[in-house]
Each structure stands twice: as C-alpha cells, then as structure tokens.
C-alpha cells in the first residue's frame, strides 16, 4: 500500500477506535472527552498544515477558531433568540438562520477568507518577525471579538448557540482533517513549502514562490481552525472571546510541539497524549481537593504539567515524538528492512 495512504488510514483508524471504544463504554463523561479530543484534533491538524510545512510558528490560529465559532453562531442562533443573545445585532443578520452543518462549513470558509485578506502581506516574513506578527494577528482578532458587540456580544458570554456537535460529527471532521493534511503535505504546494522550511535560499533558487506557498497553507489552516471553532461552539453552546486566546493557543501549540509539528502523525499523537494527560491530571486534581490535603484548592496542575512536558520534549527530542517521518513511512521502512534481513 502507498505509505501516505497507510498514514491516513492508520491515523483515521485511531479516531474510529476512539469512537468505538467510547460508544462501547457508554459513559457520558467519556463521550464529552472524546468529542473535545476530536475538536482538538481538527484544530491541531489545521495548525500542522501551516506550521509543519512552512516551519513558521503561528500564534494566530486560535484567532481563526474564534472567527469560525462566531460566524457559525450568527448563522444558527434562532431568530427569536437573537434579540436576547445579541441585542445590538445588525437587522440584516437578524433573520438569517441556516442548518448548523452548513453553518460549520461556512464558518471554515469565512475564517479562510479573513485569513487570506489579513495575512497576504505578512507571508514574506520569516523567523522571529513572522512569529511576532502572527501573535499581533491573534491580538487583533481578539480585540475585534471583545469589542464588536453587535455580532459577538462583546466580552460577555454569547448564549443560545444550538447544540449540533456530537462525537460522530466531530470524529468525521477529524478524519477529514487528517486526510486533508496528509494530502496537502504530499501535494506540490506542500512539498515545495517543506523545501522552503528546510532551506529558504535553496528553495528560492529552485524557483519556489515562497510567500505564495505559505499563503496557501495559511488559508487552508485557517479553514480548519474555523471549522474546529464552529464545531466547538455547537458543542459547548455558549462562549466568550476569552475562549479563543492565550490559554487555548498554548494547549493547541503544546499538542503539536509534543507530537512533532512536521508530521500529521505528530499532530494526532500529540492531541491524544495531551488530552489523555489533561483528563487524568484533572481527576488527580479533583481527588487532591477532595482529600483536603492542602488549605487551598489545587488548581492549574494541568497547565504546569503541559508546560513541563513541552520543555522536556524540546530539550530531549526537539522535533517532537514524530519529528520527520509519518507513521506510514516508519512502518513501511521497518517492513522493508525486515524483508531485506530475511532475504
């Protein structure tokens, strides 16, 4: 089998396994965790598409998650609820109500369009300058979300987003993201972009138009961020702009860095590992608090452990757990070596 196909099948299989195991157990809390994990997968894989292939750290990603969440909310909150949820909404938007599934797709498109317009002049930048501008982009998006009360209800929580995301939908989108990311990586754009990631000068000397390649990846990444945000919005049904800021950025980046930004396998494994660790730590935290060992509540254990894990990975294995080869390639090579050894 083609090794790229093998990668896509194995990673998708992991998601299917998650769904089957969760359904078999039938525990409500696992259902919530698994759905959240699938949403995280969409976000992390989206970030991998830009960061992994271009080699440029992007802080802006979660901003586009917010764009997606708000667009989908605007398109789906029932007209009679909009008066309460968004008192200052423009009249033209008041009557609009589409199916959540259509809204989720449109949210991705909207995020991609915003990204395309905002990022075009930035794609010439490399290294630290690019990272800092991406951070500025996150701040801009956050500021807009907190202040454009007409459509976001300002810094206050936006209620009334219809529940539409269940495990099956989230898992389905996650699988689509996996297939999309593997296909993008192996596409002409993906391969040339990876070349520019490894050596900008050499890639330009081959004739690669680097800003353009980066721009395409940024748009695709924003699309998945928008879809992920919309999925999440239709899962939790109420949120405020703070959900799409530093904390979430840190978590998603942590997943990608620990797994390995250069590979889709790394993105998927990172999301699974970090989610698993978070949920176990949360229950440890709850136990500790139940035991009342300390005078104060134990909080923030999860973030501290994630930070330590990121530091450990960056020191011990700077490329993450899957630094350069996808799982399909790893297995294909191992198999080929074994055959060679036997012959």
């Amino acid at each position: 089998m083609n090794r790229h196909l093998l990668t896509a099948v194995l990673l998708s299989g992991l998601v299917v396994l998650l769904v089957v195991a969760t359904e078999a157990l039938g525990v409500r809390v696992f259902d919530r965790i698994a759905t959240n994990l699938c949403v995280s997968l969409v976000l992390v894989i989206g970030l991998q598409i830009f960061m992994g292939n271009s080699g440029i750290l992007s802080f802006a990603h979660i901003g586009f998650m917010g764009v997606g969440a708000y667009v989908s909310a605007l398109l789906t909150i029932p007209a009679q609820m909009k008066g309460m949820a968004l008192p200052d909404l423009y009249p033209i938007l008041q009557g609009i109500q589409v199916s959540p599934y259509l809204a989720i797709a449109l949210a991705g498109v909207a995020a991609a369009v915003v990204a395309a317009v905002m990022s075009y002049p930035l794609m010439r930048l490399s290294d630290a300058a690019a990272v800092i501008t991406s951070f500025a982009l996150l701040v801009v998006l956050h500021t807009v979300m907190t202040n454009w009360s007409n459509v976001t209800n300002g810094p206050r929580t936006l209620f009334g987003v219809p529940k539409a995301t269940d495990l099956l939908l989230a898992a389905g989108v996650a699988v689509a993201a996996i297939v999309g990311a593997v296909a993008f990586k192996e596409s002409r754009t993906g391969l040339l972009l990876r070349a520019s990631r490894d050596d900008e000068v050499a890639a330009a000397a081959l004739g690669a138009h680097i800003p353009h390649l980066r721009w395409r990846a940024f748009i695709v990444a924003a699309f998945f961020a928008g879809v992920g945000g919309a999925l999440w919005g239709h899962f939790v049904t109420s949120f405020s702009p703070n959900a799409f800021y530093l904390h979430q950025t840190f978590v998603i980046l942590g997943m990608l860095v620990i797994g390995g930004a250069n590979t889709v396998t790394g993105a998927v494994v990172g999301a699974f590992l970090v989610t698993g660790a978070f949920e176990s730590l949360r229950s440890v935290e709850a136990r500790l608090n139940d035991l009342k060992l300390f005078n104060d509540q134990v909080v923030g254990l999860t973030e501290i452990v994630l930070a330590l894990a990121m530091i450990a990975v960056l020191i011990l294995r700077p490329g993450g757990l899957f630094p350069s080869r996808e799982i399909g390639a790893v297995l294909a090579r191992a198999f080929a070596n074994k055959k060679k050894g036997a012959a």
Partner: protein
Amino acid sequence: MSKPILRATDVVVEFTGLRALDGVSLALAPGEIVGLIGPNGSGKTTLINAITGQVRLAGGSITLGDRTISGLKPRDIALLGLARSFQIVRLFNEMTVVENVQAAALAHGAGTRAARATALRLLHELGLDARADELGASLSYGDKRRVEIARALAADPAFLLLDEPAAGMNDAETEALLHTLAALPAQRGLGLLIIDHDMGLMMRLCHRLQVLAFGKTIAAGSADEVRRHPAVIEAYLGSEAAHA
C-alpha cells in the same frame, strides 16, 4: 534559432568596504563546460551568486540572450532555466532524498507523479538509488553533493552552475562525478559553469578555464594556456606562500 548565451558583462559586486568583483566578464554557451578557478576569496562564488540573483550588482549586467536578468529575484532567474548548487551544501534536511530532487521538478511545473519519476531516474543516474528514502540530513558529505547535483538537474536547466561539486569526495567518487558531468552538455545541451579546487578534475573536465584573483579576471583560455600563464602562477604561488 540557437539557444541563448549566458553572459556576464563587467560585473561589479561590493560588500561593505570590499569590492568582491571588480569588472568581471564571462560568457557561457549551451554545450560548453567552463571552469572558474582562483585562490580563496577571489570572487568565484560571488560571481555565481551574482548570476543567480543571490547578491546585487553594483555595476555591469547579466544577460541571457537578449534578456537582462540582473536585478531579477533568484526565483525568477531559476525559472528562466538557471540551476545551481551551493558551496556549503543546502539540502532539505528533514525531507527524503527523493523529495529533495522532486521539489526542483515541481518548482518547474511538473506534476507530482512526473516529478517523482524524474527524481528517481536522476538518482539512479547518479548512483543514489539506495539513498532515495533516507533523510537529507543523514547522508554522507559526498552523497549530499550528488543529491544537490541531481536536484539541480531535475529543474532541467539550460545552464548549470556548480560551486565546488567535488569537495569532500574521495578519488573514486570524484572520478565518477567527472564522467557524469562531462557527459551532461552532450546529453542535455546545457552549459556548465564549475568552481572547484581540484585542479586535476578541472583541467580534464573543462573546455575553457577562467582564473579570478582579487575580483578580477587574470587569465582565461584552455587548460594548457592557463597553466602556463605567469599571472596564474603568481596568484597561486602567492596564495600558497601566504598559507605557509
């Protein structure tokens, strides 16, 4: 119509306080192998960088046929059919060898499948089949050099500019490289410009040699003419005396 000639005319390149090239001219025709030699710091690499757009000209011009290419971006110059290798190898380290070569074909408009087929064929020609699936970073120095040549060839260039292709290769590898390179102009009708310090290789391979010292051409001609040229002897003895 015959294929255009790559021509550098009175090229001047300045780095702060230093004139790296001081009015150098050079012509390279399709099917020709021209060698660029000279002591360290004489401006050989700078000339290649100037031709491929990596450094700006302070004077003079580079033309391809009727077209002036000096001032264009490296990317646009590459797309006009100029491929190069680098003095310090610049492979795509986290990509496989076949992907390294594939990238060049893709940049020049091939589809992914066609690019892969081209890459595998070139790797075979350069004796790198067994390395195809290795990561760029994991190769030996000599292999990296050869991958760079394969990558440059995958762009199907009209002119190939190689900066020290034999550096770090052993005698057997250098010999194999000599045969590969010598056959290129006839096979592909391309013009080849080579920098190398291996004089044995250069004398046998190049149709013409041009000698640079301190940013100026001090001699040009056949291997024998250059070897006997008093300015060349002085430049080389002078530089060796400086090393001693």
